[in-house]
């Protein structure tokens, strides 16, 4: 009996291997990178204006100003065009939105905003992804919800869609 069990061992190991592979194939790991700063204060930063004539953005503008949405976008980012109407919708509902333009030329940001709508109160230009990295963001578009005391409460990775609106509004309400 004992010997039989030993003989079956390779088969058991193989079956476990197949199970493990099958499990990972049917449930692939999530590649989105979540920021570890959710629940922590916004790191200190100061950005120049992304376009001349529009107010720039610094961390001081985010603290103590009620719940705000900070949207990382770029004119060279195609999914950002897709989420532009959703941001405009939020703006119409009275949400205060600030933008951070990642690696973008002022003329391109201006054209992007005139073409797809400008939902932003302030827009900072992050020419070298420095603030993006400080926030623990790994791409565009991404959105952060900052509460009244300047603490990051929520992060959304990827373009916002209509389906995300209830979650975003609930999180904004929670951050009030």
């Amino acid at each position, binding site marked *: 009996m004992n010997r039989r069990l030993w003989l079956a061992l390779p088969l058991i190991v193989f079956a476990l291997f197949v199970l493990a592979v099958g499990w990972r194939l049917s449930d692939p790991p999530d*590649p989105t*990178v979540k920021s*570890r700063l959710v629940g922590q204060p916004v790191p200190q930063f100061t950005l120049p204006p992304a376009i001349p004539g529009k107010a720039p953005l610094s961390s001081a503008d985010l603290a103590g100003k009620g719940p705000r949405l900070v949207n990382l976008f770029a004119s*060279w*980012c195609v999914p950002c065009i897709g989420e532009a109407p959703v941001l405009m919708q939020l703006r119409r509902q009275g949400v205060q939105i600030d933008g951070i333009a990642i*690696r973008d*030329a002022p003329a391109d940001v201006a054209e992007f905003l005139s073409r797809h709508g400008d939902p932003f109160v302030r827009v900072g230009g992050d020419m070298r992804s*420095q603030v993006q990295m*400080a926030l*623990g963001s790994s791409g565009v578009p991404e959105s952060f919800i900052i509460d009244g005391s300047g603490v990051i409460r929520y992060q959304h990775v990827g373009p916002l869609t209509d389906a995300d609106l209830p979650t975003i509004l609930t999180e904004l309400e929670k951050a009030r």
Partner: protein
Amino acid sequence: MRVWLASLTLALASPALADSAQPASPYAYQQLEDPRQEAQAKALMAELRCLVCQGQSIADSDAELAGDMRSLVRERIKAGESPEQVRSWLISRYGEWVSYKPGLSPETLFLWVAPLLLVLAGGMLAAGQFKRRRRS
């Protein structure tokens, strides 16, 4: 004719643009002036994960964000930070995951203990075999 057409379409095709076309960060492709600091930065860059192409290190990747991360590493080391300070700054943003050199924590305990357990099991197996052979 078909080959000619195919090469023409290839020549005319423009790549899908997922990059900003803005200039790279100052130290993305440029070494530090101090060779000792550059060696430190290089060793660290080989151990940091690119956030865009997640199987590569930032030393290997040509993604724009990887370039910006390389510049961040070099600039911070140039300013006098130790490689471990830079690593922990990034870990505090992106989690343990960003580093290819896992520290010892409850999450990674199995990773560190598994080789010891395997060697132990192998040793016991080998010892059993030797004992049996001596007996026969």
